[in-house]
C-alpha cells in the first residue's frame, strides 16, 4: 500500500469539500437547524414527551444522524462521479493506487465532513436544549460505522451512475424517505400495525435509534440490535465497494 498516495488522496478530498464549505458544511447546517427550529422548538413546545424525554431533545439525535447520513453519502458520490465525468479520475487510475487506498481516502474524507456537520448541528441544538451525552461509546460507534457505511454506498452509487439523474435517485428517493420514516421525528411505538412492523425493515431506523440511545439513553430498538444491523450494513457495503473498485467497474474499460 502506498501511504503517500493514500495521504495525498485523503487530503485532496478533504480540501475539495473545504474549498466549497458554504455548500458542503454551512448549507446542511442551516437546513438541519431549520428542521430543528420548526420541529423541535416551535412544535416541540406543544408536544408531550416521547419515550420519557422532551420532544425537543428527542429530535436532536435523529437530525444529527440524518445530516451525517446525507453528507457522508453526498461527499463520496459527488466527488467520485464528478471525477468520472470530467476525466480527472485518470489521475488516480494511472497512479500506483489500489482499491484499498481509494476506499480509505474517499471514505475517510466523507466521514470527516459528516462528523464536522453532525457536530455543528449538535452544538446548535445545545444552545436551545442542553443535555449531556448518555453514552459516549455508543455515540462514537454509531457515528463512525454509519458514516463509513453511507460513504461506501456513495462510492457504489457513483461507480454505477452514468448520469446525474442516476446519482440523484439515492438521496432523494431512497435516503430521505427512509430517514423520515426511520423515526427521526417520532417513535415507531406511536405507529399502528402493520406500520410498526414495516418500520423495522428500514435499516435507517436502527442508525437513528442507535445514535438516539447514545445521546439520550432511550430508543425504539436496543443498541445491540441497532449495532448488529449497522455492522451488517457496513460489511455488505465494504464487500460491494471493495469488489467494484478491485474489478475497476465503470472505471477501467
Amino acid at each position, binding site marked *: 500500500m502506498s501511504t503517500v498516495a493514500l495521504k*495525498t488522496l485523503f487530503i485532496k478530498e478533504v*480540501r475539495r469539500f473545504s474549498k466549497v464549505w458554504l455548500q458542503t458544511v454551512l448549507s446542511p447546517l442551516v437546513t438541519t437547524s431549520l428542521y430543528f427550529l420548526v420541529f423541535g422548538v416551535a412544535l416541540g413546545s406543544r408536544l408531550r414527551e416521547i419515550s420519557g424525554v422532551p420532544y425537543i431533545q428527542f429530535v436532536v439525535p435523529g437530525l444529527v444522524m440524518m445530516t451525517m447520513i446525507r453528507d457522508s453519502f453526498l461527499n463520496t458520490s459527488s466527488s467520485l462521479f464528478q471525477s468520472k465525468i470530467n476525466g480527472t479520475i*485518470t489521475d488516480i487510475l494511472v497512479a500506483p493506487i489500489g482499491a484499498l487506498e481509494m476506499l480509505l481516502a474517499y471514505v475517510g474524507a466523507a466521514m470527516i465532513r459528516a462528523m464536522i456537520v453532525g457536530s455543528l448541528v449538535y452544538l446548535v441544538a445545545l444552545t436551545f436544549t442542553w443535555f449531556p451525552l448518555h453514552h459516549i461509546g455508543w455515540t462514537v460507534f454509531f457515528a463512525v460505522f454509519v458514516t463509513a457505511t453511507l460513504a461506501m454506498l456513495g462510492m457504489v452509487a457513483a461507480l454505477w451512475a452514468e448520469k446525474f439523474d442516476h446519482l440523484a435517485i439515492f438521496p432523494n428517493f431512497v435516503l430521505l424517505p427512509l430517514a423520515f420514516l426511520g423515526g427521526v421525528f417520532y417513535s415507531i411505538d406511536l405507529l399502528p400495525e402493520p406500520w410498526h412492523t414495516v418500520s423495522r425493515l428500514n435499516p435507517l431506523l436502527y442508525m437513528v435509534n442507535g445514535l438516539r440511545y447514545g445521546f439520550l439513553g432511550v430508543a425504539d430498538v436496543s443498541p445491540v440490535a441497532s449495532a448488529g444491523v449497522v455492522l451488517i450494513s457496513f460489511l455488505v457495503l465494504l464487500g460491494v465497494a471493495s469488489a467494484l473498485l478491485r474489478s475497476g467497474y465503470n472505471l477501467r474499460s
Partner: protein
Amino acid sequence: MKPPVLRCRHVTKRYGKFTALQDLSLEVYEGEIFALLGPNGAGKSTLIHCITGLAKQSQGSIEVLGFDTMRDFRTTRRLVGLVPQEINYDPFFTPLESLMIQMGLMGVEPNRERAEDLLKTFALDEKRDAYTRTLSGGMKRRLLVAKSLVHEPRLLFLDEPTAGVDVELRRELWQEVQDLRAAGTTIVLTTHYIEEAERLADRIGILHKGELLLVESRESLLERHAGRSLEDIYLELIRKADGRHAA
C-alpha cells in the same frame, strides 16, 4: 541492443464482440521516440490505456522494464507517465496544487520546488495560483504534460498531445519531447500529423483495426521507399489493409 522498456506480447482487447486490439506484440527500447500511427479507431488509445492501467487487456501480457502491468501495477505505474488525449482538469485546484497532488498520488512525497520548476519549464509559473478553469486551452494542455512528469517517468505516453493545438504550442511541445528524450525518457506518442512523426520518431508503428501492420525504424522505412514521404507510405499500407479486410 538494450532490453526493451516496454514489451507487449500477444495483446488482445475485446469490448463485447468488438475486437479493439488483435494479438498485438510490440517492443519499445530505452531512449527512443516511438510513434504509433493509425486512423481513428485503429486501437492506439486502447493500447496506451492497457499499458497505463486505464483498461485491462483481454489476453496477452504487457511488461514495463520487466514488470507485469497487471501483477506489478504499483511498480509499472511509477515508471510510466501519461498525457491523455482529452484535456481534463480539476476545477477545485490551482496548477501548483494540481502538480503537488499528482506527485503524492504517484507515490512521491510532494515537493514544492519540483512543482515550481515544472511550472517554469511549461511557462505556467505566472498562473501557478490561478483557478485551473481560467487557463487557456494551450495552458491546460501544458499542465497535463507537466502533471505526467511529476514522478520523472522512464516511459512517457503522449496520446495525440497536439490535437487542436496551435502551431506555436505544437512546436514548443515537440521541443519539450526532444528535451525529455535527451534526458533519457523513452517516449511513445500518437499523432495524426504524420510529418511530425517523420521528423521526430526513431521508430514507427502503424496500427489499423487493432492490428500492427508495420514496425520499423524511420530511416529504413524511408530508405526502402526512396523518394516517398511517410504520409504516402502510411496511406498505401492503410489502403492495402482495407482491401484485405474487404476481400
